[in-house]
């Protein structure tokens, strides 16, 4: 009886279906490759997942309130170079890192203000910002990669030590999920996306909600960029960009966030990123070469989503049958 109600409770968890799909992907690769289940490989998967999950944690909030940030990938690229810039100008490393994060936040703020005050669609605002930042990175870096700083506790904490990047990702996901589902700000974000006019009539400061979410997304993107660059040991002007942004948004959408606003969960986005990471790693592990890789990747995304949708239908049916 208690097991039954437990099961019943489980079927009501929104993220269940995507979790099952992710597990299915794991089982598939376990069967096709011996090396899949090893700590080393888990770490590799974690490395794929972390940046997407961190950025997605912000994008989910933005998507829920009906916006999108195309420039997040370039904030990801920019932040490490801002850090370097501050660092070589004599700031202590921790302060340089903080400075880079603050710059990232400011970029988000500017995005949000342009979006809300000037009422320019976020697609265009952040597309313009994306190009602007990309150019800025090239100018700052002189189009050349630089080595990440080394030998400091700051480095160890922010990506240098094993798993720290992933821990930050997990932290970001937990914090943002709590913000979304356990705070007024989270409810207001949902209301802003679900019914902008209604939210405004209820006195919710919809513009402020949007600006804050732009700032959050950008901050997280900057953090993710620094973490990844530091882990890899190199800050590279071609990292990040539209590709990274794309996979972050895809993670969110795979995880159940509606592109048209109103609903979504951060945990779902994390599972979406995990699924993509497993698929990427798995196909590399089983030796799929570059030309065929995208065919397999595309097919895997489609199959996973079909499975996901089927599971959602099954889950809903099971849930409602039990309740009747």
């Amino acid at each position: 009886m208690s097991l039954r109600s437990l099961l019943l409770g489980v079927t009501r968890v929104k993220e269940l279906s995507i979790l099952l799909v992710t597990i299915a992907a794991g089982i598939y690769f376990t069967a096709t490759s011996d090396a899949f289940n090893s700590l080393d490989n888990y770490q590799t998967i974690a490395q794929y997942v972390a940046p997407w999950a961190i950025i997605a944690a912000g994008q989910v909030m933005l998507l829920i309130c009906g916006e999108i940030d195309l420039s997040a990938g370039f904030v990801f690229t920019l932040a490490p170079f801002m850090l370097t810039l501050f660092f070589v100008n004599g700031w202590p490393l921790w302060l340089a890192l903080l400075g880079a994060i603050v710059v990232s936040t400011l970029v988000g703020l500017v995005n949000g203000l342009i979006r809300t005050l000037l009422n320019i669609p976020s697609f265009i605002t952040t597309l313009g910002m994306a190009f602007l930042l990309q150019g800025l990175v090239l100018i700052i870096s002189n189009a050349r990669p630089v080595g990440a700083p080394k030998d400091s506790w700051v480095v160890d904490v922010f990506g240098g030590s094993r798993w720290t990047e992933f821990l930050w990702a997990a932290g970001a996901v937990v914090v943002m999920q709590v913000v979304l589902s356990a705070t007024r700000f989270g409810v207001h974000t949902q209301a802003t996306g679900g019914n902008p006019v209604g939210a405004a009539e209820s006195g919710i400061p919809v513009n402020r909600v949007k600006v804050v979410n732009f700032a959050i997304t950008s901050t997280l993107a900057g953090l993710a960029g620094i973490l990844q660059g530091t882990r890899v040991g190199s800050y590279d002007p071609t990292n990040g960009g539209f590709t990274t942004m794309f996979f972050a948004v895809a993670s969110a959408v795979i995880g159940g966030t509606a592109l048209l606003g109103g609903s979504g969960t951060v945990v779902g986005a994390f599972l979406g990123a995990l699924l993509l990471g497993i698929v990427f790693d798995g196909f590399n592990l089983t030796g799929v070469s570059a030309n065929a890789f995208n065919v397999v990747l595309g097919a895997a995304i489609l199959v996973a989503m079909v499975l996901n949708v089927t599971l959602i239908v099954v889950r809903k049916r099971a849930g409602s049958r039990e309740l009747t």
Partner: protein
Amino acid sequence: MTADVIRVEGVSKSFGPVDALADITLHVRRGEVLGLIGDNGAGKSTLIKILTGYHQPDGGRILFEGEPATLKSVVHARSLGIETVFQDLAMVDDLPVYLNLHLNRELTHRPIPFLRRREMKHRAREALDSIGIDIPSVTAEVGMLSGGQRQAIAIARSVYSKAKLLLLDEPLAAMGAKESALILRLLQELKRRGDIAIILIAHNYGQVIDICDRVNLLQHGEITFDRPAAETSVAELLDLVNAEYHLGEP
């Protein structure tokens, strides 16, 4: 006799080519229910949206509790104690009933401001029960509910706030007979307590005369009729609105 909670003096508002309000002057006292009637498109909702800080008037002035007030925003108006049930209800379909009931007034813990979901559910249940509306579950998403159920939630939301001025824009439009009666009784209860002023928009003149102390008619962007409810009748109101219309004729 108590003072005016709100006074509107010569307020006007246009939307591009459409002059919704030309020159509106009205007032409501504490403990009073003012009925506002008028044709479709007369500008009633527009006036309400101005009083609630959602639109800004083009001209004229508003006095709240005797002081000139610029109602900058909905938050501002609400901070003064002005609550509204909008005609479009301002519901978020994706959110559950209890969160819609507490929209922008969510209860949180202290010092960590997490939502008190359990308490909000509990209060939502109570509020809806007291209105007497039958809603399957307070955790259901509002998008699934019937027209009357949605309206009941919007009303419960405003009635249970501690407002000084309550603005109701056709709150009974989609309500069943039973539910209407319960809500009218609720308004009567609020009125009896005497610490609130209410403006009620309704097209059912019987209800208006039953519940209101005074009736104002909005025509051509102006208030053309202002009379205590006791001194008028459904028939008179209908005659005013449309001379050709005669009560009883189908």
